[in-house]
């Protein structure tokens, strides 16, 4: 049973709404009737073990995946059935930080950040250059316009990808595992950046992660996705006092009893 806990800003309008979403890949059911609303102006963290469909949920918002059944709404507009062309105005309002950064290898850092501006805006070259420099400075990567993505470290690539995600002043930024593959110090830099952008740009954010330190640092609202459904939804304190043993096991990071027994038998 979904335990909707107090502490969520239910008075705020819903920016994204999932209604009864089902998604399978072959015989594997990933989302099994998920319904959830993401409120405007809030940073929501979607937690869950690897392979439970967190990224799948995120990709439904930008139309990279379509549900097998159910509806996805952006504000009050249904978007799950839109073509790429019809999704374009929605995508303009959403920034997406990919798990692997997804910087274009053949372009410089400057061209990567300028890409959405050249695709969607009518800004002059000088204005685009100014915006690129400003966004790179916001993520602490000033004067790196001429570098190639291959010359950057993992953390720097994430920061450049973040600069690209916010180039168009989006209403919503989606973070897909923003700290995966980074050491704790660089992870914390990314966490601080998420908080800074939320504060400075007033953007809504959905962060998909299984990094608990990151989740508790940036999340105003926490959702746990497990077994194809949402098993908990609330503030960080609500999750800590949650009654469901699966929630407690996840947030304390304990291995399964069955897994431990199997390990000791080896």
């Amino acid at each position, binding site marked *: 049973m979904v335990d909707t806990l107090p502490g969520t800003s239910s008075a705020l309008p819903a920016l994204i709404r999932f209604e009864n979403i089902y998604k399978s890949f072959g015989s594997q059911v990933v989302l099994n009737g998920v319904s959830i609303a993401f409120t405007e102006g809030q940073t929501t963290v979607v937690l869950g073990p690897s392979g439970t469909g967190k990224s799948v949920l995120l*990709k439904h918002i*930008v*139309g*990279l995946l379509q549900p097998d059944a159910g509806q996805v709404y952006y504000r009050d507009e249904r978007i799950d059935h839109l073509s*790429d062309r019809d999704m*374009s105005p929605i*995508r*303009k309002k*959403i920034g*997406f930080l*990919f*798990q*692997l950064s*997804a*910087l*274009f*290898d053949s372009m410089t850092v400057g061209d990567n950040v300028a*890409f*959405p501006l*050249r*695709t*969607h805006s009518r800004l002059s070259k000088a204005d685009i250059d100014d915006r690129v420099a400003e966004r790179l400075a916001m993520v602490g990567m000033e004067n790196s316009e001429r570098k190639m993505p291959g010359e950057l470290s993992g953390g720097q690539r994430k920061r450049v990808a973040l600069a690209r995600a916010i180039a168009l002043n989006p209403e919503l930024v989606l973070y897909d595992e923003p700290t995966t593959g980074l050491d704790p110090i660089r992870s914390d830099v990314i966490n601080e950046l998420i908080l800074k952008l939320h504060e400075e740009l007033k953007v809504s954010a959905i962060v998909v992660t299984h990094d608990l330190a990151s989740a508790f640092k940036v999340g105003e609202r926490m959702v746990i996705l497990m077994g194809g459904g949402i098993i908990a939804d609330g503030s960080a304190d609500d999750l800590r006092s949650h009654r469901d043993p699966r929630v407690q096991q996840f947030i304390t990071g304990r291995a399964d009893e069955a897994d431990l027994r199997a390990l000791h038998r080896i």
Partner: protein
Amino acid sequence: MASIKTYDETLPSRPDYVARLGAWAINTNLAMGDMGVFFLSTLYGILRWPGRRTISETLAQMYEMGTKSIPVVMVAGGFIGAVLAVETLPQFREIGLASRVGSVIVISVVKQVGPILTAVMLAGRLGGAMTAELGTMRVTEQIDALRVMGADPIRTLVVPRVLACVIMAPILTLYSDAIGILGGWVVAVQVEGVRNYPFWHYAAQSTDLFTVNVGLVKAFFFGIVISTVACYKGFRCGNGAQGVGRACTEAFVTGFCLILLSNFILALGLNNLYNALYPNQPSVL
């Protein structure tokens, strides 16, 4: 004592066969349909007026595919022309027609060897590179990133590559033809002592503009086949390094088979066209 395998042990039961055959038929049809839709999307992308970014990317691809492929295509073409002379000259000498070897070399090179050799070189050199590049972009979510940023991946990535390959394949074929004929001339005239004038005289007599165009038309279609298959395999490749590697192999094998198949179909079609245009001439194709 060795056990004798029964029918039931060695072969799946009949319903398994039927199910497998059905699954194969469905999957093959789905894959062909998917490739067809991919090709039509590319065609639509080409027919829409290409933007400045598409044109500049096409020019960059033309340099990458064309200019950088000239040495390898010329070396291969030169040696094949030379081998043609080495292999055919003794036969012609035996019947006293050594001076006519030029016609065989030119017709073989211009109509078959030039376009096919160039296409195979392109499928190996460019097809693999295109599949690997696009496959890596897919695996590292760069193609998803393009879509999320409102750019059409077909128009951004596929259209410039297909256009560049379609334009450069006939041009490279001309290079291959020229060097192939030169290779044959070096062996026949400079090494084997065939007289220069009859070599070129019979070569020119056996070749007309239609013959040259046959090779170029074939190269045009081979360009479409190589680039479309390579881009398709890159866009649909599986995950990880293994997925990209497998996609590259599939791109070359599928591209090569389609080159041979389209060569046969084009030969038949162009032969009929020649007969319709020049009804009193013997078929040359």
